[in-house]
């Protein structure tokens, strides 16, 4: 049993990470289907699925609510699962609002929700999207309504952007920065920020000149409103971080076969390991399959111009496959002993349930009796 199959059978959380544009959301959905096929009630929580994928999953709108993937759709795609599978699309803004609602007093809450700084929180504070995705994961996991959670994450070029999110948010709200900035304000002095008191007028004038005086005072108001929530934030962020590092959670790193992606994937893998996370697999998606030698000789026996056209087509396909295979081999060596799985590129787009099912079979090569799976599924390095 590969570590990924083992995780789908026994662990509670699979987090899919990786850069944008490599099919991470698609594979997260495919893993949830495989989890359900193994008999575990599964949920895929996506961030920003393409419209067609969303509709294939039965999601017509955002809303932080898990909805079952319609049984009729699954039947129509010829998929028979042993357990239900659900999907959910994360609404960043609503998730933050819910978090504030939980952690703040009613009066504090009003002030926070109305503040301009809060309103642009998700873009302003680096890592806040990642943080809220992890926060949601923790909440879903604590609620325990599913056996297996598969989390799709926002695209990040660096693993640390994602992993550091709880720490960064925690640092800001819960630690020295906020306290240092807010101490005089908390003592009830007139000026909201210690910055104004530090070093006298030169510094405060300098800051105002850079960001504007009004902006500074808006920010002071916001920080003051948030300050009472520090403890709540800190506890949650610690819980999120603990869940990520626990035996309950595995990480799947998704990437593409192109040479430009390789170094990025290796760096990503390295930081995941340094953080002590359990990496179940590196998945290379959309790999070009090689041509069949029989096809090459069959093409050679055809008359021109067909022969030339086919030979050209075959040699192009071969060139792509050779380049991908070389990259895969180098990547496999670089991430060992983490198993490397490859999922072939399917013609056309992979946005319906049957295509998700087909892709999933390459991630879970164990063939269960009576289920229709492609025999070509392969696992490497396991």
């Amino acid at each position, binding site marked *: 049993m590969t570590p990924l199959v083992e995780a789908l059978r026994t662990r509670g959380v699979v987090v899919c990470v990786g*850069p944008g*544009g490599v099919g991470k959301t698609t594979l997260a959905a495919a893993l949830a289907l495989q989890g359900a096929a193994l008999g575990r009630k599964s949920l895929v929580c996506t961030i920003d699925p393409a419209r067609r994928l969303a509709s294939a999953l039965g999601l017509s709108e955002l809303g932080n609510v898990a909805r079952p993937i319609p049984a009729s759709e699954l039947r129509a795609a010829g998929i028979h699962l042993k357990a239900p599978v659900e999907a959910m699309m994360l609404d960043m803004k609503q998730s933050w609002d819910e978090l504030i609602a939980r952690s703040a007093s009613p009066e504090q809450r009003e002030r926070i929700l109305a503040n301009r700084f809060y309103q642009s929180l998700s873009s302003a*504070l*680096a890592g806040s999207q990642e943080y809220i995705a992890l926060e949601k994961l923790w909440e879903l996991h604590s609620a325990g309504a599913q056996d297996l959670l598969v989390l799709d994450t926002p695209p990040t070029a660096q693993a640390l952007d994602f992993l550091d999110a709880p720490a960064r948010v925690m640092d*800001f709200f819960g630690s020295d*920065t906020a306290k240092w900035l807010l101490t005089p304000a908390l003592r009830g002095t007139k000026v909201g920020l210690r910055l104004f008191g530090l070093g006298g007028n030169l*510094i405060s004038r300098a800051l105002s000149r850079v960001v504007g005086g*009004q*902006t500074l005072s808006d920010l002071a108001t916001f920080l003051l409103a948030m300050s009472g929530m520090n403890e709540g934030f800190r506890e949650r962020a610690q819980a999120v971080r603990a869940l990520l590092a626990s035996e309950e959670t595995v990480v799947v790193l998704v990437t593409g076969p192109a040479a430009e992606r390789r170094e990025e994937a290796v760096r990503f893998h390295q930081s995941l390991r340094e953080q002590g996370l359990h990496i179940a697999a590196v998945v290379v998606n959309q790999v070009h399959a090689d041509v069949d030698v029989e096809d090459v000789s069959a093409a050679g026996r055809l008359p021109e111009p067909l022969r030339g056209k086919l030979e050209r087509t075959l040699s192009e396909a071969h*060139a792509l496959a050779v380049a991908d295979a070389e990259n895969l081999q180098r990547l496999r060596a670089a991430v060992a002993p983490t198993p490397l799985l490859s999922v072939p590129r399917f013609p056309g787009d992979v946005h319906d349930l049957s295509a998700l099912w087909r892709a999933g079979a390459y991630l879970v090569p164990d063939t269960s009796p009576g289920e229709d799976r492609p025999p070509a599924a392969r696992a490497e390095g396991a």
Partner: protein
Amino acid sequence: MAQLPRTRLLVITGKGGVGKSTVAAAVAEALARTGKRVLLCEVNSGGRATALLGFPAAGPELRRLEGELWSVDVRPAEAMREYVLKRIRVERVYRALFENPLVRAFLRFIPSLAETVMLGKVLWHVRDTEAGRPRWDVVVTDAPATGHALTFLGVPQVLLKTLPPGTMAEEATWMRDLLVDQDVTKAVVVALPEELPILESLELGAGLRALHLDVSAVVLNQATEPRFLPEDLTALAPFPRLESLAQAHADTARRTEEAVHRLGALGAPVVKLPRLYQGTMDRASVEALGQRLLNGFAGWT
């Protein structure tokens, strides 16, 4: 082709993974070869586009690559430093204040400040002069991907709507004016002949239009020209595997054609770049792509 540079800023954007950096690098290199002074300006990308031309990755300082081709990777910390120093002019104050880790954490929290200073630096290069003439004939920007690009390019307009009058609002005004000047700024959207990149390109076009930044050209990367005729497919009927290979090629070529048609909705010429069948880009292939792009952009580069 490539005469009379009125265009001073090329903004290259599109969905993640469609080849924006390749297009930016190829255009910059090709423009420099026509004798222009060109700055390839990356936006916190790690200097990737410069590396595609076979040079060490771009860093936060301007660097001459060859001839009149230069590059820089605009990064938040350095852009912030330049931005602040232009205003307070006292290095000592800057260091005391802005290099304090606590203050940095605080500044990170100000909405859009990082985007403002990075966009400001890109646009400042466009306005930069040397001996009475613009320092750069053209600044080619490898802009962020769709969602982030709209946030990035929209920063001045958002700031103008939300900020009280003051320093940042004044900054935002000149930045917006430069971006929406159709003679100066041209937006180029890069796409692939696949469903999601096409949909995202159309959304991106609408988003840019809402910012009064019209799309001047669409680049369709990895285009496949038709090869198999209907009668070829018929002739291959006795060889099902070869037939499906030919059919797959014909389908790919059809998707390219459909993509050209659908991207036409952006109201700009679609320039096709052929799909390349090699593992990594070499300098010769980047140059060939650049030539095609300049031909496609004829009239305004």
